[in-house]
């Protein structure tokens, strides 16, 4: 528990910039300064503007924009194309400019004796007070260095400003110039005083094409995605970051089939699961999801594969007891190095931290198949959006390893229904298996159907199944019963469900 809290001690502020928060694992480190560095034309100013604009539009957070380079007039005009009405926001007290730009006619100012940037700091603080700002952007630092000769002094003064902003409980973006796309972080040694959090914007000429990318270089004490991600600038939207996970999901899947551990389920899926596919098993509590996971793992172990399960609902002891109740020996599988069981309570840490620790565990154990029981247990520790991003990242990571992932999802009602999990990840998964209770003739029976099997034909029937000390047994399709999936089974007149006459129809 303590460890979990420690890891997630750096809170994040979602920028609201599409895709950025996904690669930044939630956003910018809250109440800290992030240096956004880039060459000329790399969209630094746009990023700084958008940080404030999305704060206003999406989160109701006010902002202060300190401009050293472009005049407020230019910025207002240049951002109209993104549908940001800065002038109105200024009138409404949501956006304040601190104009530190060089105006036409400004002469070089002589320095006689010692000075500091106290006036600038006082103006920034005054602006923060005026609108109770939560976000501050400073764009861009290079321009202020060019106006004062003493670079060391400016560096230490900017550090003082960063410290003051932290104390004022605002989250800050400072932009800075770079000379080259790959090299020093920024000119004037700016990174020496705001080095904790660095984002790099690039605008590279690659194969005769301009390619914009964004990279979170570091967030001290907080997680983020590594590497460069494509970035585009869209009219009416501004900067949009494209998380690679979304692209990877569209990649062609493997044709290699693996066993689910239950022969009949393999048959229903048209010959087993695909090796690098994501399978969602949905059902109410007690329908047999954990059993399917258990079969999935033992089937893998039987094929000499390495299997891994992340359990968020049951303890290790419980899982092992369940498995042995179905005639499967998890302890032996673990001794043989074919199984690794990781049990955790969802609440021990944030979702990003779960993702990071799960990735690390997968990287260490290098399994051939991974099960998560249940995914829906993680729903409750995150926002819907955060959860979806978690699932996208995890899914793409698992697929990237060319391993099979089986996720379970618990539906909130006993009969029929779907969970939030399903609603948000069904499009991401390759296969969906539904487990449902069906009340027929005063008896609770279980039904299973393969709802979706991407890239393959599959059995469309709803089959009855039973569970005993040997595990799962799949029988005949329900006949003359409809409405099982909806949780409202009704029988056709004169026929018994699953009776012999029904099979004549086959």
């Amino acid at each position, binding site marked *: 528990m303590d460890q979990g809290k420690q890891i997630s001690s750096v809170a994040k502020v979602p920028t609201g910039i599409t895709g950025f928060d996904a690669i930044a694992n939630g956003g910018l480190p809250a109440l800290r300064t992030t240096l956004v560095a880039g060459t000329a034309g790399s969209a630094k100013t746009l990023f700084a503007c958008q940080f404030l604009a999305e704060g206003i539009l999406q989160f109701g957070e006010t902002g202060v924009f300190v401009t050293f380079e472009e005049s407020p007039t230019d910025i207002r005009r240049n951002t109209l194309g993104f549908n940001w009405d800065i002038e109105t926001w200024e009138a409404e007290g949501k956006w304040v400019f601190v104009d530190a730009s060089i105006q036409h006619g400004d*002469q070089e100012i*002589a*320095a*006689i004796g010692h000075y500091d940037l106290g*006036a600038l700091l006082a103006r920034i603080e005054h602006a923060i007070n005026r609108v109770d700002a939560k976000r501050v952007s400073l764009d861009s630092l290079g321009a202020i260095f060019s*106006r*004062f000769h003493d670079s060391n002094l400016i560096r230490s003064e900017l550090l003082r400003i960063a410290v003051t902003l932290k104390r004022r409980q605002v989250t800050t973006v400072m932009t800075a110039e770079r000379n080259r796309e790959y090299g020093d972080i920024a000119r004037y040694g700016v990174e020496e005083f705001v080095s904790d959090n660095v984002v790099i914007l690039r605008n590279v000429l690659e194969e005769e094409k301009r390619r914009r990318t964004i990279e979170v270089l570091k967030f001290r004490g907080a997680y983020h995605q590594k590497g460069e991600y494509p970035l585009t600038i869209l009219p009416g939207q501004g900067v949009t970051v494209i998380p690679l996970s979304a692209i990877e999901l569209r990649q062609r899947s493997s044709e290699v089939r693996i066993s689910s551990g239950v022969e009949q389920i393999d048959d229903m899926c048209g010959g087993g699961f695909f090796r690098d596919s994501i399978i969602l098993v949905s059902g109410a509590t007690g329908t047999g999801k954990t059993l399917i996971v258990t079969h999935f793992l033992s089937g893998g172990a039987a094929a000499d594969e390495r299997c891994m399960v992340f359990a968020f609902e049951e303890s290790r002891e419980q899982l092992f007891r369940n498995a042995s109740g179905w005639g499967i020996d998890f302890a032996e599988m673990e001794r043989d190095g074919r199984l690794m069981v990781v049990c955790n309570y969802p609440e021990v840490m944030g979702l990003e931290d779960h993702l990071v620790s799960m990735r690390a565990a997968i990287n260490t154990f290098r399994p051939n198949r991974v099960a998560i029981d249940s995914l829906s247990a993680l729903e409750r520790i995150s926002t819907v959006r955060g959860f979806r991003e978690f699932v996208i990242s995890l899914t793409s990571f698992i697929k990237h390893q060319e391993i099979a992932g089986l996720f379970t999802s618990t539906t909130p009602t006993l009969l029929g229904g779907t969970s939030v999990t399903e609603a948000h990840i069904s499009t991401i998964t390759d296969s969906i298996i539904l487990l449902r209770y069906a009340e027929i003739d005063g008896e609770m029976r279980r039904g299973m159907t393969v709802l979706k099997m991407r890239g393959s034909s599959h059995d469309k029937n709803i089959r009855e199944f039973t569970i005993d000390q040997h595990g799962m047994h799949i029988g005949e399709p329900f006949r003359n019963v409809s409405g099982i999936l909806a949780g409202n089974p009704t029988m056709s007149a004169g026929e018994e469900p699953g009776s012999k006459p029904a099979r004549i129809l086959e």
Partner: protein
Amino acid sequence: MPKYSLKLYVIGRSPRSQLAIANLEALMRAIGGEGHDHEVVDILENPELAEQERLLATPTLIKAAPGPSVRVIGDLSDTKAVAEALGLELAAGHGRG
């Protein structure tokens, strides 16, 4: 002899502010004569004045009149250099030692 109007912007009563104020007094004595006007503005008390003048550095001394506004920054430790930068005429006897 022109009548000068000078405004010194400082932050609070820090040693640097005190020094700049003392140096401004020395500058006024060096200018000598009658009818000049000088004022010390504490930005902490009047931040909107710093905003109006678009100040970045403190201390800043602005010659508001006569003629176009001219400014210098720093603690004004060199009276002659300040006078030169702002185009102020010093009384005879000053500026040579």
